[in-house]
Every structure is written in structure tokens, then in C-alpha cells.
């Protein structure tokens, strides 16, 4: 097939695009491990691609940089977990706030601090220690239980993952929850009026407004970043307080575990183009008919409703099944050996489509508008000539699908499209290495 051998037409713009959006997804979710965690609540600034900069309050791992969302804590089933919270939040005016953490779904013992309405709180410059047993695997969330209406908005939120006893390649203790890659989808939003008020006049003045009751977010995030920053690398230097990207990549036939967390206060319909996903669990509990049955009550959706404070685990797969044309292009360039399901066990081509041409006449280059994710070739793994300056965001010629909030107004950065709660998944050919 010509597409595997045609040279990519390189130019400076494409090189810059590739450098900025280097494909670097990773098979496991980035986070911190252990049984004893030290989280510091403190101030920081996040940035959005429209040039916005907002004060936030977040959690840092010990003396590290404060981040939004807070560090993803990854622990193992059966462990007793201790989280010590240090309160270093400062304000320009008024009293410094207490801060706390609640862990929905866990029976938590809190020691130290002062009594709050939901749990014990760390006073300014004080600490409080929470401990609980991670009895059940799954995806969970943590957030401030102090003035939650304000402090969750300010960014005191995060994810907790409990790995099952069966091993880190499973979501729960059942073979049907096995996955090849996992990705976090921590969905949240911000109303900058609140952050600007806190930064300039201090948090107490927020009470005199209706910003929290008459809530109007204009920026939206996946894992703390707004598109297109969702697709940059993890830990990119120019987003020091937003270390997590949200950029799934996979090979055909793999199982991708989506850990979807409602991190803000709004409901978001996560619409994952490309295929249905099977919802296997909610709030850390498999949808199951009984012990040992696994997620047999799981169901397929093409939109996952993410509710605030709630979590959903779903498994997404993609193959060439039923596409109707040879996804790898010219039949002479590759073979297809069908397994019991009719798919090649390596390339996951649908062998009944082997050699079938794409069923349309491909328009000429003078007749199309190019997107950054077009590789020049419609075939999986294919790359072909592009006019100067076009493409560049998909150097391996994968199939890209938009994964986004289907509340369409959330795909913007303060009214600028594209932005917000949006990313792309790239299905890479099986020959492409994904880190």
C-alpha cells in the first residue's frame, strides 16, 4: 500500500505541531501511590488556552507544586490509607478558611483539626488526618467538605483509585473487567467570577454575590485542562499546575478503561465517538447480579452521563468489524487471517472486508478543507501528501475520534471554539508503538 511508503511532507509548522502535541499517552493513569499520603491545600494559578489565568485552591503532593485536579491517589484493595491534610491556603482579605477532605463511599476516621459540618477540618496552617480502609476496588473521588460550594469550585478536588486484589490490569475482581489501557476523565468547570472575586477581595465577599447560586461557568476541563491543552503531554512545563493530560490512544482490539469522574458540580454527557462503551460500574460498585458474576448487568452506551461527585467505569473497544471496507487500504500490502470472530487477531481488520475499496470517490485535495488530525490518507496507519501547513497532529495516521461533552456549549474556552471539555482519541495501527 502506497500510504505506508509515501514520505510525509515535512515542514516547519508540522514539526512545531508534533513537538507541542507529542503523542505520549501511557498505558496507566498518572498518580501517586502508597498508603500514607500528605496533601497540602494551597493557592495556585491555572491557565486556559484563551489566555485566561485563574487563581485556584488545590491539593499538592507534600511540598510539590499545587495541581488541578489534585493528585490522583492510587492504592491497593485491602490497604489502610492515611491522608494527612495541611492547610496552607492564603487570602488577600478576610480570614483564611479551614479546609477538609471527604471521601464519598468510604468510612473515614478523622483525627485532629476542628469539627466541621461534614468532617474534621484543618484550621489555617493546621493539619488533620483521615484514615480509611480501601476495602473495595474502583474509581472514587475526593473533595473539600468545608464550604463545599465555594471550595470545590476553587479546585479542591481529586481522584482516588483502588486497584483490585486480582491485579492492576483489572478494574474489579473479575476477568471481564480486564483492560489494556486506562484513562482518567475528570470532568469539571469553573466560573471565573468566583475566582476573580476571591483573588481580589477574598472569599468572604463571594457571600454577597449570587455567583454560587446563579452559577455560570465559561471554562470547562478534562483532567484540569481545557482543549487543546487536553492533548499536550503530561507534566508539560508550561502548565505547571495542570499536570494531567486527557489524550487517549489505543490499538484496535484493545480494551480501554474509562474512569469518568464528575469533579465539578454540573452534569456532563461524555460523548465518545467511535463505538459504544460498556458501563461496568458506578461509584466503585460493579453492575452485577451477584458475587462472582462480574459486570453482567453492564450496558452499552455512546454517551456516559457524568454526575457530580459520582464516578463511572466503562470499557471502550474498537475494531474494524463491520466497517465495510479494508481499513488498511490496498489488499496487496497486507494480509488478514481471520480468528473465530472473523477479525485478524493482530491487526483486528475484519477479514470479510479484506480488499474492499473505500466506497466513495475520495475528493481531490483542492476540494476539501483539512483538519489537523488528517494524515493525508483515509487508511489506518496511512500517511500521505498534504498541502504545506496542513495536518501534523496525527503523524502515525491513526483513526481519530472526538471525545467531548455533548453539552456543546462546554466545548469552548470562554466562547471560543474549539476548547473546553474536548479531546481526541487516536486508534493507532497495531504496528505503531504507544508509550
Amino acid at each position: 500500500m502506497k500510504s505506508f511508503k509515501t514520505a510525509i511532507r515535512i515542514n516547519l509548522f508540522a514539526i512545531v505541531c508534533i513537538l507541542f502535541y507529542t503523542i505520549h499517552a501511557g498505558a496507566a493513569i498518572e498518580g501517586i501511590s502508597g498508603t500514607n499520603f500528605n496533601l497540602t491545600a494551597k493557592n495556585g494559578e491555572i491557565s486556559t488556552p484563551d489566555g485566561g489565568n485563574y487563581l485556584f485552591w488545590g491539593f499538592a503532593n507534600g511540598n510539590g507544586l499545587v495541581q488541578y485536579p489534585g493528585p490522583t491517589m492510587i492504592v491497593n484493595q485491602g490497604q489502610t490509607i492515611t491522608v494527612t491534610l495541611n492547610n496552607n491556603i492564603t487570602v488577600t482579605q478576610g480570614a483564611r478558611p479551614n479546609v477538609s477532605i471527604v471521601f464519598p463511599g468510604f468510612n473515614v476516621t478523622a483525627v485532629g483539626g476542628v469539627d466541621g459540618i461534614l468532617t474534621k477540618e484543618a484550621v489555617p496552617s493546621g493539619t488533620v488526618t483521615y484514615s480509611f480502609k480501601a476495602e473495595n476496588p474502583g474509581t472514587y473521588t475526593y473533595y473539600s467538605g468545608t464550604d463545599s460550594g465555594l471550595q470545590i469550585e476553587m479546585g479542591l478536588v481529586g481522584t482516588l483509585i483502588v486497584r483490585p486484589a486480582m491485579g492492576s490490569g483489572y478494574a474489579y475482581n473479575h476477568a471481564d473487567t480486564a483492560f489494556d489501557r486506562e484513562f482518567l476523565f475528570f470532568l469539571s468547570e469553573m466560573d471565573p467570577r468566583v475566582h476573580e472575586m476571591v483573588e481580589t477581595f477574598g472569599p468572604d465577599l463571594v457571600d454577597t454575590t449570587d455567583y454560587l447560586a446563579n452559577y455560570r461557568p465559561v471554562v470547562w476541563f478534562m483532567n484540569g485542562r481545557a482543549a487543546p491543552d487536553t492533548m499536550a503531554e503530561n507534566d508539560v512545563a508550561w502548565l505547571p499546575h495542570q499536570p494531567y493530560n486527557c489524550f487517549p490512544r489505543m490499538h484496535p482490539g484493545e480494551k480501554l478503561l474509562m474512569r469518568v469522574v464528575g469533579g465539578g458540580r454540573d452534569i456532563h454527557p461524555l460523548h465518545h465517538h467511535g463505538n459504544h462503551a460498556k458501563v461496568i460500574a458506578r461509584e466503585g460498585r460493579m453492575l452485577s447480579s451477584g458475587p462472582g458474576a462480574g459486570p453482567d448487568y453492564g450496558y452499552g452506551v455512546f454517551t456516559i452521563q457524568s454526575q457530580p461527585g459520582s464516578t463511572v467505569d466503562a470499557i471502550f473497544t474498537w475494531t474494524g468489524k463491520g466497517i465495510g471496507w479494508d481499513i488498511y487500504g490496498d489488499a496487496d500490502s497486507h494480509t488478514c487471517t481471520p480468528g473465530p470472530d472473523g477479525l485478524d487477531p493482530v491487526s483486528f481488520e475484519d477479514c470479510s472486508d479484506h480488499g474492499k475499496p473505500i466506497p466513495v470517490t475520495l475528493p481531490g485535495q483542492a476540494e476539501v478543507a483539512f483538519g489537523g488530525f488528517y494524515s493525508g490518507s483515509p487508511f489506518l496507519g496511512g500517511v500521505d501528501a498534504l498541502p504545506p501547513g496542513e495536518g501534523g497532529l496525527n503523524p502515525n495516521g491513526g483513526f481519530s475520534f472526538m471525545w467531548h461533552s455533548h453539552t456543546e456549549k462546554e466545548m469552548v474556552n470562554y466562547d471560543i471554539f474549539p476548547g473546553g471539555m474536548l479531546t481526541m482519541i487516536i486508534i493507532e495501527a497495531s504496528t505503531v508503538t504507544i508509550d
Partner: protein
Amino acid sequence: MGTKILRRIKTTVLLFTGLLVGAVSAHAVNLAAVEARWTPPDSAAPITMWGFIADPGSCPGSPVSWDLGPQQIGTAGGALTINLRNCLNEDVSLVIPGLNATLSPVINPSDTLGRSRATSFAKVATANGGTASYTWTNLKSGTFIYQSGANPAKQVQMGLYGAVVIGPAPADVAGEVMVFYSEIDPALHSPPVAATPLTYKPKYYLINGEAYSPSQAVSVVSQNTSQSNILIRFCNAGLMSHMPVIQGEYMTVLAEDGNPLPFERQQYSVHLSPGKTYEAAWRPQKSGKYAIYDRRLSLTSDGAVGGGLLTYIDVRFPWPMFVPAMSKGGHN
């Protein structure tokens, strides 16, 4: 617990229905729709409300103190009749989404733009003293909301709503609590106008008709030590969605809108869209106060934090006891 609860519900309902053959339980209640006043916790001026009260026999001469409409009850398979006296200055009706009734909608054949529109989902009790009788038959067990079906965009948010509990409750249940959410946007109350998506901005959030106070709690006493499930009935008569979270616990969600779920779900929250009801069973391990708060963060009162949709379930066992540790739910 778990699937046993659902099996027992079905068994209990079947037994109960068998007993009712030839003797259907019918139940009649007299209500009045009246003008009322509600005083916000921040001592701002009292807000004009409309509410349902037990019919005093004639229309009150002055506004009453507002509360949720009296809770209505019934029995699965039976009937419920509500006789409504309308003391307001516009037509009112009654609907209970999810319960069976024959409705006679009132149609205005030509509004100001010449359109034919329904002005009430059900027949009306006419303004200023009119009466009407509403009957629901073949009642389904569960939790429901009764509310005005006339000009609902205006009348429901004015306060014309209450809860309906149709028994029997699941057999393992030793105590019940009601968590009924509603909202008040004072700007739409004087004069009463319809809420619209752009204008509706609630300032006050109520649980069981009460604004938040630090001592607010919903009490339940669990009497029977071997059957110590608490049934939580959730209702949302507001116009915004809410997500009650029970602190540190899991619930077994049993039913939505009065429909039993096909399989048990272990969750720590439920999604209450407007008009939604849920029932969930929960077995507290020890007595004490368990927080339930809205993760949609309607946790303000007139803008100020420290209010809104937060309450506690105050569980009291009659004596110190050991509750056998049960699975925190679900299957891992």
C-alpha cells in the same frame, strides 16, 4: 441484603394484594389551595407562597404559614381521592405523575397568539372557592409528588406540592425518612409569575419545607434490631437537578419514580432531576447523625455559604447493640 430485598418486596406486595381481593382500600382527603407566607432564615421580608393545607371547611381569611402540602398515603392496588377547595385567585388542579388517573385537560382554544394550548393537565377547581374531586386508582407502591397541574410553570414553584407515599414499604424496613427537596425564587412570587429557564434563580433551598439550620436533622428511630434497614424516600419538587450524597455510606437503590429497579444498585448518591423520586435502603452500623448533602452544591442561602441542601439523618437505636458487619455493598 441486596437481592433479598427485592424478592421480599415482590413477595410482600403479592401477599398484600391477595388480602385486598374484594376489599380495595379507598382513601379520601380534603385539601385546600391557599395563599401563604414563608419567612426566610435571614429574616428578610416574608415571601408570598401558595400551598396545600388540610381543608379547614372554608377559605382562610388571611395567609397561613407555608409548609409542604400534607403527605398523602395510600395502599398498592387501592385508590386515593383528594377533594380540593381552591382559595386562590386562579384555577388550580392536581396531578400525581406516575399514578393512574383519568385526566380531563383544560384547553384554551386560542391564546394571545391564536394557539390552542392546554392550561391545565387535569380538570380544575375554579378560582375563589371552586372545588373539584380527583381520584387515582390501582395505586402503585412507591414515592410520588403531588402538585398543581394548572399553569405549572407558575403554580408549582409558588409552593403547590407535597409527597405521596403508597405502601407497602419493603419488608426489611424498620424506619423511613423523607428527603423532599424544593426551591424558592422570591423574584417570581410578588406578583406570582411563571418560571422560565433564563429567569429562574432560586435563592432558598428547602428540605421537607424547611430551610437549613445547624440543628436541622431528619430523625428516625430504628426499632427492630434484626431488621434495621432505613428506607430513604427522595423527592425533588424543584426546577433544578440535585445529587444527594450520603456521607461515608452506601445505599441500595430500590426504585425510581415508583418503579422497582430490575437489579440492586449500590450507590452513595442519586440523581434527582426535577420531579424525580427515588427510594433507597440503607443499614446504618451505629446510631448517630449521617449527613446528606447536595453535590450539585445548592448549598447556599441567599448567596451565602453554609446553608442549602444539607441535612442529617439522625439514627437512634433504642439500646446499644451490635449490628453484624455487612458487606458495604456491591460485588468486588
